[in-house]
């Protein structure tokens, strides 16, 4: 376990020393604060608008950091030859893979926490009320980061780094935004089209389930605890599936 933690630690140190999270943290603050200035004009309902912008912007940026970080891990290790001395030690490829996953997952979760603290502070400054759903939303967003980290890390052993960032971003954002649209599209289709939509619907992770933005924006009640528990299991299962697919290739990859 110490070996996995050691590799994860290097991944986390790298992310924070590269200062990526800080840059997007400042960017997010500027966007949300800019949107918040509208509420100073006293227009009714602008609080909801600011919340919506805040969650959307930080959500997008968190996904971006997670995907970019996960996508560069193994390709950079191979390109810079840092993987060779690593694997020359008594360390298995599975341990390297898990260490990388753990590192990206923790880093992305920390970024979500930082963004959430920033949002909370800005909402307080702008006198926008925050409910308990906000905290549920933070938890679920962190869970979704683990799925995205697993997916991107796994794709990194199949695709080029650039291709992986594009595909992972598209998949993550499309599943957050258009998952429900698949059901609507399906009703108008026949034959193989239905089969394609069904396959996509059941194969891809439903990241929209982890997004409580609308609940928080429209002051809906908090989600029951069993839902959070079920989503935790869902995230764990999908992460494991992605990891298994990635590990299958990484295990036999000629370096």
């Amino acid at each position, binding site marked *: 376990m110490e070996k996995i933690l050691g590799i994860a630690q290097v991944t986390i*140190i790298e992310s924070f020393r590269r200062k990526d999270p800080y840059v997007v943290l400042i960017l997010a603050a500027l966007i949300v604060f800019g949107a918040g200035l509208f509420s100073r004009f006293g227009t009714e309902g602008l609080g909801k608008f600011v919340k919506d912008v805040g969650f959307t912007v930080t959500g997008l940026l968190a996904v971006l950091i997670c995907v970019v970080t996960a996508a560069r891990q193994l390709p950079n290790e191979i390109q*810079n030859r840092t993987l*060779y*001395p690593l694997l*020359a030690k*008594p360390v298995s490829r599975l341990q390297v893979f898990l260490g990388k996953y753990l590192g990206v997952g923790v880093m992305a979760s920390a970024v979500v926490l930082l963004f959430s603290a920033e949002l909370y502070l800005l909402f307080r400054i702008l006198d926008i009320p925050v409910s308990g759903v906000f905290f549920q939303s933070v938890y679920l967003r962190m869970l979704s980061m683990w799925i995205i980290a697993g997916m991107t890390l796994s794709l990194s052993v199949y695709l080029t780094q650039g291709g992986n960032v594009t595909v992972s971003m598209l998949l993550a954002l499309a599943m957050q935004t258009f998952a429900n649209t698949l059901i609507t599209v399906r009703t108008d289709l026949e034959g193989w089209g239905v089969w394609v939509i069904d396959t996509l619907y059941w194969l891809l992770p439903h990241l929209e389930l982890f997004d409580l933005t609308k609940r928080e924006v429209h002051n809906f009640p908090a989600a029951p605890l069993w839902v959070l528990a079920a989503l935790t299991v869902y995230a764990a299962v999908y992460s494991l599936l992605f990891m298994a697919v990635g590990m299958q290739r990484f295990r036999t990859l000629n370096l």
Partner: protein
Amino acid sequence: MIDIPDEVITITDLMVEYKTDSGKTIRAVDGLNLTVRRGEVVGFIGPNGAGKSTSIKVLMGFRKPTRGTVQVMGLPAGHMAGRRRVGFLPEVALYYPFLNARETLRMFAKLREIPRGEREDIIDDLLDKVKLTGRDREPVRGFSKGMLQRVGIAQAIMGEPDLLILDEVTSGLDPVARYDVRRILMDFKAKGKTVFFSSHELSEVTMLCDRVILIDEGRVLVEDKLSAMSNAIQRHIVCVDGLLSPPQLPQGVFIHAVSNGQTTFSADSVEAHAALNGLLKQMDVPIQHSFEEPGSLEDFFVHSIGHKVS
């Protein structure tokens, strides 16, 4: 803990093929056979593209062979128990530029399974050995190639491995760094440990090795003791008075030195020697003295490989 076998590296009928981006199959190693015995220091030399680095990758378990068997410490290449006894230095690794040297070694100490309480002392000792004490808190990103190689050597010798496998260990190092690396390897050799290293620096190989394995096109060309290789090539040295520069020298004849008003020629075969003598006679230049000496490893290398461009 595994016992150290007599043959620490055994490669039998190794063949490695890979596909290029254009789909062409390249055979990097083609029926390679070699053995390294316990306590030996063996140089693995050959021209660019001879298959040295590919063979080492297979040896470390980074790459699967197309055919053949490779054993390290009596175990299949890449076996976890074998890796506990092996130190490895890759050809120019960049390490983690955002970590400092101490943090880098700390990470490797964890992976090397060095007990937590002993780590810092071991790291201090290693930093001292590779002359990085005082620079250990600087980010590796600012290190020169030589300093990076020192970090690499420190991680390779960490935990006193029984076998060191080094890929181009002195490549691109300045003379001081090269001297330091040689000193560390000599120390290793003195402890009866085994070293297997590839290098283009034939002078290093000459100074360090008991035995040399010369490969080309993925096969072993020659495998022998260094002295035997040198004796296989005899150089004929001919000294004449005056600074002589004939318009065309016979094949195999080179100007060896020009100093103290004398010109020294070197002929790498009996035929070349005879042709040189003929030329000097034709020019009416008397020979001051002439003798034979064993050739260098470089002479042997050039003689065996020729002047082809890889």
